[in-house]
């Protein structure tokens, strides 16, 4: 293994270097727009507008840049979702808040969301391992609802990972279809899907209706603007 150039060694693991952060964001945006496979370092450079040498000061390769950018953004997004959920008070409110935050992110940054939700499978390596670790982590957070159920009514093992993977699969499919405007239409069904294993059909139906009401309000606000 070769040694890192001095500047790269200094910045390794640091998210507070603005140039490094810009390169990582450009890498994800380019990968989400063009596909990871098609992206060359040149296109990342064009996006962030810096000099070629800056890329190589911070990263050894396109692969390394994507893997680090992926881990940084996924950790940040996961923390935001968990924070939104915890601030909401209880599991069901927290789930609503987290899912809405996730949908807003995907709506506002579809190209970065595509990189996070789809292109990690394409990149493989560290990014894919991080994706799997994140699904497991979110699955554990979802499974906190198991503690609220009677032992005989607890959902089967793997429910949290199953639900977390289902959320990622829904968003990945919508983002691959290239229709962010259509993204929100699946929120009610997704809320039902997430709630049902833990709280049963009646609660799931309530969440579905709550999501429909939320979308109606959102459309109303959009029309009023």
């Amino acid at each position: 293994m070769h040694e890192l150039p001095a500047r790269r060694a200094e910045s390794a693991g640091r998210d507070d270097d603005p140039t490094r952060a810009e390169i990582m964001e450009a890498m994800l945006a380019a990968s989400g727009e063009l596909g990871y496979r098609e992206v060359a370092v040149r296109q990342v450079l064009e996006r962030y507008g810096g000099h070629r040498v800056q890329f190589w000061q911070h990263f050894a390769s396109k692969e390394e840049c994507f893997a680090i950018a992926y881990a940084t953004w996924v950790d940040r997004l996961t923390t935001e979702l968990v924070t939104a959920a915890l601030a909401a008070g209880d599991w069901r409110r927290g789930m609503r808040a987290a899912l809405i935050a996730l949908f807003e992110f995907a709506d506002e940054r579809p190209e970065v969301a595509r990189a996070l939700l789809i292109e990690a499978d394409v990149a493989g390596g560290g990014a894919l391992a991080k994706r799997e670790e994140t699904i497991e982590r979110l699955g554990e957070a979802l499974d906190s609802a198991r503690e609220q159920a009677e032992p005989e009514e607890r959902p089967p093992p793997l429910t949290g990972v199953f639900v977390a993977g289902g959320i990622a699969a829904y968003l990945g499919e919508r983002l691959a279809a290239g229709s962010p405007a259509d993204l929100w239409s699946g929120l009610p069904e997704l809320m039902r899907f997430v709630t049902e294993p833990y709280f049963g059909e009646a609660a799931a139906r309530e969440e579905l209706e709550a999501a429909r009401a939320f979308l109606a309000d959102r459309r109303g606000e959009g029309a009023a603007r």
Partner: protein
Amino acid sequence: MTEAATAWAPGGTPPRRLPPGRHGLPPEQVRESQRRRLTAAATAVLAERGYGQITVTEVAKRAGVSTSSFYKHFGDLWDCVLAAYEEGAERLTAGIEAACGGTEGRDRARAGIEAGLTLLAPEPALAQLLSGDPPSQAGALWTARRSLLARLASMLHHARGGQGGGERELQLIAAATALVSLKASDGGGKRLADLGQPLADLLHAP
């Protein structure tokens, strides 16, 4: 036997490279053998290297054919991967449909899940191909994936009593596919075989 030779095999027959020199086989048989080896090789190379690293050169080399022969069968790499996907999807759905015959309700769901996992467990490369996310720009692969998930969701909808429009089953199948992808890349066949009971509970629970 190489992994490529065992990665995909219609009817359970591993595709083998034909003997060198004059073999007296009709040209159609030679073409069919090459095509099967190429789709098997694409499945195996994808499992090992992912969508980011797979190349026509490596697929052709693994299949034991020249790159010029590759292009006699497929317009580009994605045509070959799509053929591998569609062949695998057809085997999977045919196997599940056959296993579900004569059963209803929870038994039907369980029979279908067991049949699917029985087919995929010894072929983790195929499981990864069918369950993983294709590149976001590979539109034809996403269309094939949507078609597979819709067929599986339709089967599940039947097993769950056929109520509603099928949206719930589509979401459940998408989640099951994500779980299979996770287990296939994280330990292969053994992890997949262990999914039978949890998936039966997760997919059938109304």
